[in-house]
């Protein structure tokens, strides 16, 4: 109390002298100006020091190095790359590899996460327990450790090419990676591809028509089976009628190497496995919380008006659960993308490994390289969250 009175006394005494300084707007302006000046001073000091340090170490600055020849090779690349190409091209290779593993990882993690999340709520005691064990074990162990485990302890411990493990479907697994049959497209396949596109368009049209009909008449139409027939059945039929223009080329061991087929390198496999399995455990928890967040009355009401179990889940529970699930799911997608940068630890040539690793070491231009890396990840984050926000708005509750 004493503090307050003396404070107030001082304040009043001072207020008579300098009333101006005690107006909130003036104070706020002063605070902000001081903050800006301090930050600018800090920024100036950083730039000044950096310039001095770079001069002393004879490191160039600017982005001229992007056009210089890289002089190193990359083990896996979606676009043509060899050591005579530029650093800029190497950047692109790394970025594409990051996007590839992040995109595939998001798909696998989402599917796995939904399956395990729903399994955690299963009425089957054993299945629910198994899912719980999965979640509690996986999410409490560092991702980097899991990547090392998959890469060094599992994939690098596989047998050599001569004793490859044969997988169903003609795949071969050995220490050099996973060899899978590669599709060979012969003339005539364009027609099949066109049929697939046509099937997708037709299925969308059927969906729209069936929806309108149901809104008008209440009658339902088997959209799922029709769509399956259109998208899978029709192209398959065309394929057979045209005499199978797509064949598979199986990998074969010739001499010391495999001929034919496609190879998924162990670095890529380990990263994809580790990222998906780790993120799936978090997605499973989000899905569980989302489904539990839908009030029980909703499901009971759905059953009471005569919907079947499946219909109540599909039409009543899941749409409402999605509203709870999407925002945290977005941040998991972003986490997965950011975590893909751990590729550097197991040698998968992603953006961080190629660009902030090899290019940084060769050019020494730490400031430019790291700033670009950060900006790329920021851009990916912003684009992903913008897309997910749009999706969320579409799914959000429309108050009528």
């Amino acid at each position, binding site marked *: 109390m004493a503090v307050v009175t003396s404070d107030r006394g001082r304040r009043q005494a001072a207020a008579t002298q300098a009333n101006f300084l005690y107006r909130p707007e003036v104070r*706020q302006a002063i605070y902000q100006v001081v903050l800006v000046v301090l930050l600018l001073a800090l920024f100036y000091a950083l730039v000044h020091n950096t310039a001095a340090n770079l001069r002393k170490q004879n490191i160039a600055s600017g982005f001229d190095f992007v056009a210089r020849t890289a002089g190193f090779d990359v083990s896996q690349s979606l676009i043509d790359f060899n050591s005579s190409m530029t650093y800029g091209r190497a950047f692109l290779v790394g970025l594409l590899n990051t996007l590839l593993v992040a995109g595939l990882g998001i798909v696998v993690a989402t599917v796995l996460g939904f399956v395990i999340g729903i399994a955690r709520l299963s009425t*089957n005691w054993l299945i629910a327990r198994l899912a719980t064990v999965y979640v509690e074990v996986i999410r*409490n162990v560092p991702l*980097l450790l899991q990547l090392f485990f998959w890469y060094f302890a599992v994939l690098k*411990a596989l047998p050599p090419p001569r004793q490859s493990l044969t997988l169903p479907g003609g795949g071969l697994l050995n220490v050099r990676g996973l060899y899978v049959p590669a599709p060979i497209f012969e003339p005539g396949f364009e027609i099949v591809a066109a049929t697939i596109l046509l099937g997708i368009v037709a299925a969308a049209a059927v969906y729209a028509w069936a929806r309108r009909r149901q809104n008008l008449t209440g009658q339902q139409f088997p959209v799922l089976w029709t769509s399956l027939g259109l998208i899978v059945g029709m192209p398959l039929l065309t394929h057979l009628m045209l005499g199978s223009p797509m064949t598979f080329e199986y990998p074969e061991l010739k001499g010391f190497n495999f001929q034919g087929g496609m190879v998924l390198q162990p670095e890529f496999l380990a990263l994809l496995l580790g990222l998906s399995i780790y993120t799936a455990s978090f997605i499973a928890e989000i899905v569980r919380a989302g489904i539990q967040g839908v009030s029980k009355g909703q499901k009971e009401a759905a059953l009471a008006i005569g919907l079947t179990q499946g219909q109540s889940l599909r039409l009543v529970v899941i749409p409402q659960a999605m509203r709870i699930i999407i925002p945290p799911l977005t941040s998991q997608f972003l986490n997965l993308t950011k975590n893909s940068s751990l590729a550097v630890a197991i040698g998968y040539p992603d953006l961080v490994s190629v660009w902030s690793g090899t290019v940084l070491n060769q050019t020494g231009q730490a400031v430019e390289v790291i700033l670009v890396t950060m900006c790329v*990840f920021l851009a990916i984050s912003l684009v992903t969250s913008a897309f997910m926000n749009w999706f969320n708005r579409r799914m959000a509750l429309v108050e009528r």
Partner: protein
Amino acid sequence: MVADTDVAAKIEAPPRNTVGPIAWIRSNLLSSWSNALLTVIGLYLAYQVLSALIYWGLISATFTGADGSVCTREGAGACWPFITAKFAQFMYGRYPEPERWRVNLVYLLALAGLVPLMIPRVPGKFWTALYVFVLFPVIAFFLLVGGVFGLLHVDTALWGGLLVTLVVATVGIAGSFPLGILLALGRRSKMPIVRWISVGFIEFVRGVPLITVLFMASVMLPLFLPPGVTFDKLLRALIGVALFSAAYLAEVIRGGLQAIPRGQFEAADALGLSYGKKMALIILPQALKLVIPGIVNTFIGLFKDTSLVLIIGLFDLLGIVQLNNSDSKWFSPTTAMTGYVFAGFIFWIFCFGMSRYSQMIERRLAAGDRR
């Protein structure tokens, strides 16, 4: 008496088929055909995983030996003597052996403060908190680094193993607290420039991977400093980790601030408290208490992320395991697997324990709300 037994006799026992283990199995495992099929698949999966684990870890495992040659036989399981031989290194890194009592003492002192602080029933929270957050860090610093009071100086380059993991995680979260609170307050400030700067920092740091922040701390920080000034490698990593977790902590604390009813702010204003006093005495104590589970979860995330420091050349628990896996003396096909399983188990115990603790606190807080 007779009437009593009559009444008791009239209360019929529940039908046979609704109680007991058989009924439980029937309703939980075999309620329908699809359910029974799931049970069979589940049993098969559980059997496969458990039997593989037991076979690898016990039946075909090696328990004694002086080097990796004992684990090289065909079909060998875990190579446990590798762990026994390297255990001290996994715990302390290259911390000099006669000085390791200092690390143990620090652990003991930490436990002495943390255990009473974490058990809600123990009284004297203020003094324990004072000890844990003010006195203990000072003691721990001098004990670990040394160089005073006749203690031998131990360079941080010699630290390693679990010690580095714990130091990076705890110093990281403790160091990020002041900045995190400032950022959270700044993000809710009425001053636009303060708000923009806070939002900018938080969103920037949350948008980039920790590894780039660590790269920045290890490669760019030396460039930012005046020429001639050098920094300890561990300290650089700590600065990076603290800046990184400050952004995440700020978001957690902001959640707590948003949960405080407006009346609390207005009441503090009505009492004539200044902004600093309002926050320090009224708002933050309530907000921080609300977000203890969130803070623990951030800490769990940070604890797992400390393993990333191995990429910039520090040897935390995972880093030292990784380093020893390539020790030629212990070369065997199962050395790596054994090392990872051991490190994973240690990480798991810490993280699982903390997540259970956070769930307990969450339930306690929720109990207060239910009243």
